[in-house]
């Protein structure tokens, strides 16, 4: 019994890391630009399909293809930004959120249908030599692919933190998150920071998509599910604290698997639990678990 519980906890953490990674991407973009890109899940899906194609057409291992997938997503990111999002930069914060949501919903439809055309509605996944293999500690299974997902997510998070804390460009991003006007007054090109953050967000979606594809599978309608999880996690962790966001992802993963474990037939309620958590946080701690109160 205890083993099953621990196993559940482990799977919750491993899944939560992917939620966290997806959410850090959306939270980074939102924190800096106030663009609420609800097509983030579709970008993630495209990352998954990209690595699926690289595997099935060129036999390229999904983990090795990550740099190519990132490059592909950066390309999509630049096109979407320059074509659509750049026009939103000058709007007020409220209008930015509203308009980018509408753009995002439009993109959702377009990207989903492109995926349907290119890859049909079937679930797509890959089987590598190490798929399904696991190591076992004290009776608890750790599938290689999922553990690699956690490790890569952590590497992304730590690199992002290092970039934001130690480099001039990263500090410029943090300054823009705090006060874009004051940032422009010290000579930071805020528009450049916006583009850079948007691209970082898309790149992270690509990495997350690849990890989702190797751990599970991808299909054209998956995007909304991942956007929703990311938004829940972003609100849970609090905007502007990416470690908090990531921890929020793990919390959501663990909560979901605990529901499946403790409530009879709870597997059916996994989705509901996330949304209930979302509402509770909005009601009782709207700044998020790790967020700062508005001054």
């Amino acid at each position, binding site marked *: 019994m205890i083993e099953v519980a621990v196993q559940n906890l482990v799977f919750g953490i491993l899944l939560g890391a992917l939620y966290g990674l997806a959410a850090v991407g959306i939270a980074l973009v939102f924190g800096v630009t106030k663009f609420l890109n609800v097509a983030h899940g579709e970008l993630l899906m495209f990352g998954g399909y990209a690595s699926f194609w690289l595997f099935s057409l060129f036999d390229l291992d999904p983990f090795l293809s990550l740099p190519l997938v990132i490059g592909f997503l950066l390309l999509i990111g630049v096109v979407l930004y320059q074509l659509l999002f750049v026009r939103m930069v000058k709007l007020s914060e409220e209008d930015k959120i509203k308009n980018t949501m509408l753009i995002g919903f439009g993109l959702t439809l377009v990207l989903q249908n492109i995926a349907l055309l290119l890859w049909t509605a079937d679930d797509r996944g890959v089987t590598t030599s190490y798929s399904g293999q696991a190591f076992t500690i004290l009776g608890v299974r750790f599938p290689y692919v999922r553990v690699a997902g956690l490790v890569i997510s952590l590497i992304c998070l730590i690199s992002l933190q290092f970039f934001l804390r130690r480099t001039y460009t990263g500090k410029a991003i*943090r300054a823009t998150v705090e006060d874009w006007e004051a940032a422009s*007054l010290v*000579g930071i090109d805020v528009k450049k920071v916006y583009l850079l953050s948007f691209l970082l967000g898309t790149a992270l979606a690509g990495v997350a998509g690849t990890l989702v594809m190797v751990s599970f599978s991808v299909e054209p309608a998956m995007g909304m599910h991942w956007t929703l999880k990311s938004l829940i996690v972003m609100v849970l962790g609090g905007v502007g604290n990416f470690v908090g966001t990531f921890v929020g992802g793990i919390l959501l993963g663990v909560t979901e698997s605990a529901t499946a474990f403790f409530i009879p037939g709870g597997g059916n309620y996994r989705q509901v639990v996330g949304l209930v958590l979302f509402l509770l946080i909005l009601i009782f701690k709207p700044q998020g678990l790790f967020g700062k109160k508005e001054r």
Partner: protein
Amino acid sequence: MYIWENRMLKVENVNAYYGDLQALWGVSLHVDEGELVVLVGPNGAGKTTTLKVITGLLNFASGGVSFNGRDLDRMPAHKIVELGICLVPEGGRAFSGMSVLENLELGAFVSDARKVKDQTIQWVYEIFPRLAERKDQLAGTLSGGERQMLAIGRALMSKPKLLLLDEPSFGLAPILVQQMFNMIETINRQGVTVLLVEQNVRAALELAQRAYVIENGRMVGEGKGDDLLSFESIRSAYLG
């Protein structure tokens, strides 16, 4: 009267709007190199708007703004900082989630300033020794006066030729206000040209070499600081 050579900032006949609302009506002013000029006026007169126009935060509808002969029309804010104009906005707006040192480093963001960052930081610490003591503290935990010092220090890090200050004495205890004005005078003596916006009219006029008075978006007076102090309209309006 000296002619153009050392005329640093020129604002000519500027009209500016917030949406449909006209905030500046034909505003003109100039600042010469080395000067300490004060812009005074009541709340909502257009003082901050004038600074926003100069620093590129607000585009003006007509008129002209130039700095050392360069036209600033439509120039984005970060380019204007590169030219050597730096604004300390009202309340300072230090980045509260970052340390004092990080704030100062960000002040030297533009490439020319970044090269001499280490020397400039020593200079800033000489002017504001308190910042050196607090360098690892988060800006959000500083007192109001310290935060204002940090904001000015951050602006100095960009090695500005012209420093714009928007009500640096606002919200400070009376004892700190005089200290703040002394520091501004020191900065000006060390070669930084200053345009100071103040509601603390008497102290500002005593400090200034020249002053402008703005009301309802229009310039209504200009003169030497001491002269303005004795102006009847100023006395009755601001000094009680």
